[in-house]
C-alpha cells in the first residue's frame, strides 16, 4: 500500500468521531432515498406488470340497468379494444362466528368463466362453476381475515333473499389492490369482501337478466381516453349512467397512486437536504484538515507529488466518509424497505411484489452520496492542490479581524471578553456560521413539520368523527326508501335514535369546470351527521340552494351567491341551475349539500331517504346485528366506532413511526452540525483557549467561549427553523390535498416548543461532548505546537 494511502486511512481513523457523525447524516439521506426511490420503483414495476398481465381496464362506468345489446355498441366506440359488461351489487353478509355484519360487493363472472378484463388471480381453490347458483370466490384478504377456506360457507342477503353460498376459491384482482368498504377510511379485510359470482346466479338474484350495470373498457394505446368517456356517457345516459371514469378515479388505483406520489415526493424532498448538509459538513471538516496539514501539503509538493494527486488524496478522505455513510445507509435502507414492504403487504394486495429496492436504487443512492461528499471536499481539496508549495511551507497568516460597526455596538454594551470572542468568532466565518445555523434550522423545521402533521390529524379526527359524525352506525339502503322506513329502523333492537339522510349523484358544472360528486340531502335539525363550520357550529343547507365544500367550490371556481348547473345522475336525472348558498371547510371528500325537502321537491317525490344514521345501546349490539342480517333492503352497514377505531389506530401507528423517524433525523442533523462545528472551533481555537486557561480562566469560563458559539448558533437557528417548518407544513397542506381528503394547517405553539427543545438539547449534548476534550487539553503541548 502506498504511504499516502496509509496516511489517508490513519487520518480517517483519527477523525472517526467526526467522520461517523457525518456518515450518519449521509446514511439518513441514502436510507431514505433507497427506501422511497426503491419502493417507488418496486411498486410501479409490480403494478405495471400486474395490470399488464391481468388486463386491468382503462375505463370504468356504472349505470342503473343497461341492456346487454348495448355492449356491442360500446365495443364499437372508436379506440375501444375490448369491453366487458358485469353486474356489480352490494350485499350484507352473515359470517359464521362474527357478531357484526359484514358487507360485500358482488361482482359477476362472465358465462365463459374467467373474465376478459380485470382478470383475477386464483390464490386457492377454483373459480365457481358458471352454472352453479350458490358458488362464489372471494378476495384472498377477506378469506384470510375470516379464516375461510375453499369449501367454507357464508350467508348473504342478496336483494332481500338470504342465501347460503359456498366458497370455491380465493382470488386477487388488479381492481382490488387496495380495498376499502363503503363509508370506511382504512381497509377492513374482515368486514368488507369482494364476492365473485357467476353471472347467471347474480342476474337471477338481482333481476338483471339480459342487462348489466357496470362496464369496463380497455383502450387502444392510440385512443384518447376523454373522447371514449364522452361517447360512453352518451351511450349509458338513457340507462341511468353514473358517469364513466378513468383509472385515475378508480379507488384502488388512486390509493396506490397516492402512496407512490408520497414516496416520490419524499424521495425528492428529504434526501437532498441530507446530501446538502453532508456536503457542508465535509466541506467544514476537510477545510479544517487542510488548514492543519498545510505544511504536510507543502512537503508533498516539495517531494514532487502532483497537484492532482494531492487533490485526490483529500477527495478520497471524503469518499471514505461517503463509503461508511453509504454502507450504513444501505443497511438501514434495506431494513426500512423491508419494513415498508411489510406495511404494504398489510394494505396492498398484490399476488407478487418485488419487495426490495432495485440494484439501480442502491447504485444511485451510493453515487449521490459519494458525489455530495466529494463535492463538499472539492473546494478545499482544490485549494490544497493549487496552493503554491513555497506558500504552503510557511505558516498561515493570522485570521484578519477588523473592527466593525458591530464591534463598536458590542463595546458600547460593555460585554465581557469571552462574549466578544464568541461574537467575533461567528462573524469571522459568516458563511460557515450562517450554514451551521441553517442546518440546525432545518432540523427544527423537520420537527415542526412532523409535529404539525400529528396536530393536523388530531384536528381532522376531532372534526370528522366527533363533531360531524356522531352516529354509531350508518345503514345504507339499496334503493331510496320512503321516510317512513325510519320507523322500522327505530324499532330495531338497541336503536336509541334515528335520522334519515338522502344521497344523490350529480355532476356539478360551472363553465368549463365540472365534477361528479355525491350530493347529500340533509333534513333540517339533523344532529347525528352534521355539517360543521370552522368554529364548530352546525350549518344547515338552506332550501333553494346548494352548500359546497370549499375545495369543491375552488375546483369549480364558484363563489357563494353564484349559480351552478347541477345535472342529477340519479332520481329523475334532470338538470337544475342552483345558487351556491355558501362554502364550508371540510377535510374528507368533496361534499355538496342540499336541504332534503328541497331536493325531494326538485325530484317531485315524497320525502325519501337512502341511509339512516342511528345511535345504539351498546348492550344490545348483538341483537341489533342479528336483526340487520335479515333486513332485505339494506346494502351496507357502517359501524362508526370501527371506522374511528381503525382510522385512529392506523394513524397512531403511522404517527409513532413517523415521529420516531423525524426525531432521529433532526437529532442526527443537529449532532452532525453542532458536534463538527464545535470540534472545528476547538481545533482552531485550541491555542487561544489554552492561553485563556494559562491566564487564569477556569475550565468553565473557557468552555463558555467554546459552547457559547455553538449554542448561540443553535438559538439563532430556532426562529428560522420555525418559519421554514411552517412553510413546509403549508406546502404539505396543499401538496397532500386531493379529492379524497384535505389536511388543515394546524400550528400549535407546543409543536414549535417541542421542536426547539429537541434540537437545543441535541446541540447542547454535542457541545458538551466536545467540551470534555477541551477539559483534557494539554496546555503545554498546545502552546508548543506549531500551527
Amino acid at each position, binding site marked *: 500500500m502506498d*504511504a499516502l494511502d496509509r496516511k489517508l486511512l490513519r*487520518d480517517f481513523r483519527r477523525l472517526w468521531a467526526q467522520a461517523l457523525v457525518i456518515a450518519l447524516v449521509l446514511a439518513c439521506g441514502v436510507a431514505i432515498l433507497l427506501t422511497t426511490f426503491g419502493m417507488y420503483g418496486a411498486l410501479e414495476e409490480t403494478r405495471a406488470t400486474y395490470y399488464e398481465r391481468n388486463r386491468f381496464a382503462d375505463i370504468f362506468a356504472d349505470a342503473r340497468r343497461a341492456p346487454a345489446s348495448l355492449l356491442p355498441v360500446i365495443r364499437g366506440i372508436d379506440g375501444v379494444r375490448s369491453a366487458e359488461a358485469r353486474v356489480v351489487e352490494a350485499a350484507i353478509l352473515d359470517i359464521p362466528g362474527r357478531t357484526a355484519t359484514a358487507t360485500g360487493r358482488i361482482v359477476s363472472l362472465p358465462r365463459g368463466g374467467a373474465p376478459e378484463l380485470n382478470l383475477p388471480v386464483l390464490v386457492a381453490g377454483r373459480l365457481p362453476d358458471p352454472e352453479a347458483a350458490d358458488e362464489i370466490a372471494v378476495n384472498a384478504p377477506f378469506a384470510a381475515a375470516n379464516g375461510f377456506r375453499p369449501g367454507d360457507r357464508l350467508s348473504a342477503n342478496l336483494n332481500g333473499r338470504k342465501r347460503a353460498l359456498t366458497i370455491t376459491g380465493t382470488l386477487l384482482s388488479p381492481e382490488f389492490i387496495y380495498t376499502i368498504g363503503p363509508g370506511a377510511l382504512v381497509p377492513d379485510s374482515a368486514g368488507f369482501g369482494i364476492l365473485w359470482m357467476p353471472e347467471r346466479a347474480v342476474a337471477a338474484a338481482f333481476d338483471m337478466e339480459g342487462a348489466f350495470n357496470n362496464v369496463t373498457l380497455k383502450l387502444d394505446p392510440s385512443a384518447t381516453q376523454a373522447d371514449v368517456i364522452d361517447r360512453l356517457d352518451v351511450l349509458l345516459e338513457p340507462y341511468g349512467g353514473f358517469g364513466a371514469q378513468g383509472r385515475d378515479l378508480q379507488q384502488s388505483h388512486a390509493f396506490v397512486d397516492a402512496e407512490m406520489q408520497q414516496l416520490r415526493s419524499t424521495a425528492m424532498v428529504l434526501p437532498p437536504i441530507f446530501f446538502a448538509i453532508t456536503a457542508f459538513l465535509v466541506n467544514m471538516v476537510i477545510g479544517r484538515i487542510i488548514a492543519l496539514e498545510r*505544511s504536510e501539503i507543502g512537503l508533498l509538493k*516539495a517531494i514532487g*507529488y502532483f497537484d492532482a494527486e494531492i487533490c485526490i488524496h483529500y477527495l478520497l478522505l471524503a469518499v471514505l466518509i461517503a463509503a461508511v455513510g453509504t454502507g450504513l445507509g444501505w443497511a438501514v435502507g434495506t431494513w426500512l424497505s423491508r419494513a415498508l414492504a411489510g406495511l404494504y403487504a398489510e394494505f396492498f394486495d398484490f399476488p407478487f411484489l418485488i419487495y426490495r429496492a432495485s440494484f439501480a436504487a442502491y447504485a444511485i443512492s451510493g453515487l449521490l452520496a459519494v458525489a455530495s461528499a466529494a463535492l463538499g471536499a472539492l473546494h478545499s481539496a482544490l485549494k490544497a492542490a493549487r496552493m*503554491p*508549495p*513555497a506558500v504552503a511551507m510557511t505558516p498561515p497568516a493570522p485570521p484578519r479581524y477588523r473592527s466593525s460597526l458591530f464591534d463598536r455596538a458590542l463595546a458600547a454594551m460593555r460585554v465581557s471578553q469571552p462574549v466578544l470572542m464568541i461574537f467575533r468568532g461567528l462573524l469571522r466565518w459568516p458563511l460557515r456560521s450562517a450554514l451551521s445555523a441553517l442546518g440546525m434550522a432545518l432540523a427544527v423545521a423537520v420537527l415542526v413539520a412532523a409535529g404539525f402533521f400529528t396536530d393536523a390529524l388530531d384536528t381532522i379526527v376531532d372534526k370528522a368523527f366527533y363533531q360531524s359524525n356522531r352516529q354509531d352506525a350508518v345503514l345504507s339502503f339499496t334503493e331510496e326508501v320512503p321516510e317512513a322506513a325510519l320507523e322500522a329502523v327505530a324499532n330495531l333492537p338497541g336503536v336509541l335514535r334515528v335520522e334519515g339522510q338522502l344521497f344523490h349523484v350529480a355532476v356539478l358544472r360551472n363553465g368549463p369546470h365540472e365534477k361528479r360528486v355525491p350530493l347529500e340531502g340533509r333534513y333540517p335539525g339533523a344532529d347525528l351527521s352534521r355539517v360543521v363550520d370552522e368554529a364548530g357550529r352546525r350549518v344547515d343547507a338552506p332550501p333553494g340552494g346548494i352548500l359546497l365544500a370549499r375545495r369543491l367550490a375552488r375546483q369549480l371556481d364558484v363563489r357563494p351567491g353564484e349559480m351552478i348547473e347541477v345535472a342529477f345522475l340519479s332520481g329523475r336525472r334532470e338538470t337544475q341551475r342552483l345558487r351556491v348558498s355558501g362554502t364550508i371547510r371540510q377535510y374528507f371528500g368533496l361534499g355538496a349539500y342540499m336541504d332534503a325537502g328541497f331536493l325531494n321537491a326538485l325530484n317531485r317525490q315524497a320525502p325519501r331517504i337512502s341511509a339512516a344514521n342511528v345511535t345504539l345501546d351498546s348492550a344490545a349490539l348483538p341483537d341489533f346485528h342479528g336483526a340487520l342480517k335479515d333486513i332485505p333492503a339494506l346494502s351496507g352497514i357502517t359501524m362508526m366506532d370501527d371506522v374511528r377505531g381503525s382510522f385512529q389506530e392506523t394513524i397512531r401507528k403511522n404517527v409513532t413511526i413517523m415521529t420516531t423517524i423525524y426525531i432521529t433525523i433532526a437529532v442526527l442533523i443537529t449532532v452532525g452540525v453542532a458536534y463538527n462545528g464545535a470540534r472545528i472551533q476547538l481545533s482552531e481555537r485550541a491555542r487561544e483557549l489554552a492561553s485563556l486557561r494559562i491566564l487564569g480562566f477556569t475550565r468553565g469560563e473557557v468552555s463558555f467561549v467554546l459552547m457559547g458559539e455553538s449554542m448561540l448558533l443553535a438559538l439563532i437557528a430556532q426562529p428560522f427553523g420555525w418559519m421554514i417548518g411552517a412553510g413546509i407544513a403549508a406546502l404539505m397542506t396543499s401538496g397532500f390535498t386531493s379529492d379524497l381528503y384535505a389536511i388543515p394547517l394546524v400550528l400549535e405553539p407546543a409543536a414549535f416548543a417541542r421542536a426547539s427543545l429537541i434540537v437545543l438539547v441535541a446541540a447542547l449534548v454535542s457541545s458538551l461532548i466536545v467540551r470534555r476534550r477541551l477539559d483534557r487539553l494539554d496546555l503545554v503541548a498546545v502552546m508548543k505546537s506549531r500551527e
Partner: protein
Amino acid sequence: MSIRVPRGYSWRMEGRMPERVFRTEGLTKVYDTGGVQVHALAGVDLELFAGELAVLLGPSGSGKSTLLNILGGLDHASDGRVWFRDLELTGLGDRGLTRFRRDHVGFVFQFYNLVASLSARENVQLVTDVSRDPMRPEEALEQVGLAHRMDHFPAEMSGGEQQRVAIARAIAKRPEVLLCDEPTGALDSKTGVQVLDVLREVNERLGTSTVVITHNAAIRKMAHRVVYFQDGRIKRVEVNETRLAPAEISW
C-alpha cells in the same frame, strides 16, 4: 548497500572544470505584501557545482530561503533565469516544476515536516512511491543510522532523529541535489552536529550536490564553498581550503 556513482564530475576531481548543477542569472524575487514591495532577491548570479557542499550564510530575511525555494522549484522568480544543468527552470510551469522536484531534488526543512500519521519507514516511502529509481526505504534509513527506529512515529522520536528521517526521505530517491533549509535550526548543538555529519556522509559517499542554508556561521566551516548573503544579494563567495568535520564544529 549500493551506492550509485554520481552523474557528472565530482567537485573533488582536481584539475578538471567542475560541472555546473545550478546557474542563476539576475535572479529577482519581489513580494507584494499589502502594497509594499519587498525585494527578497535583488539580482542574484550564482553557480553551484556537482558534488559540492555549499553553505549559504546570511541573517534571517536576507533572501536565502527564497533562493533555495526557487532553485528547488518550489517558487517562481519574478525576474531573471535559473538553469538546472541544461533545463531552464524559469521556463517551466507548475507541472514541469513538480516533475523536476520529483526526479532531481531532495529537501530537508528546519521543522522536519514529517507526516505525523506515518512511521519513519512510511515517511520515506512517501518519496520512494513516486520516484523512478529509489533506494529501499530501509536502506535510506540505514544510511542515516536509524535502522532500529524504522517503525516509530514522529511523535516517538527526538528532534535529531526526526531530522535524520527527513534526510533519509530526501536521499531515498537518489537526488542529484539536496537542498537543506536551516536543517539544524530547531536542534541543540550536539544533535545539530550529528545531523550535519549525516549530510556530510551523504555528500561524500553518494556525491550528492548539497546546499545548506543557515544563519549559523559556525556551519560554514564544513563547506567546500560559502556564499554570503545580505539584503537579497550575494555579498561574497569563499572557498574553504581546509574543511572541518562536523564533529569539530560547535556553537
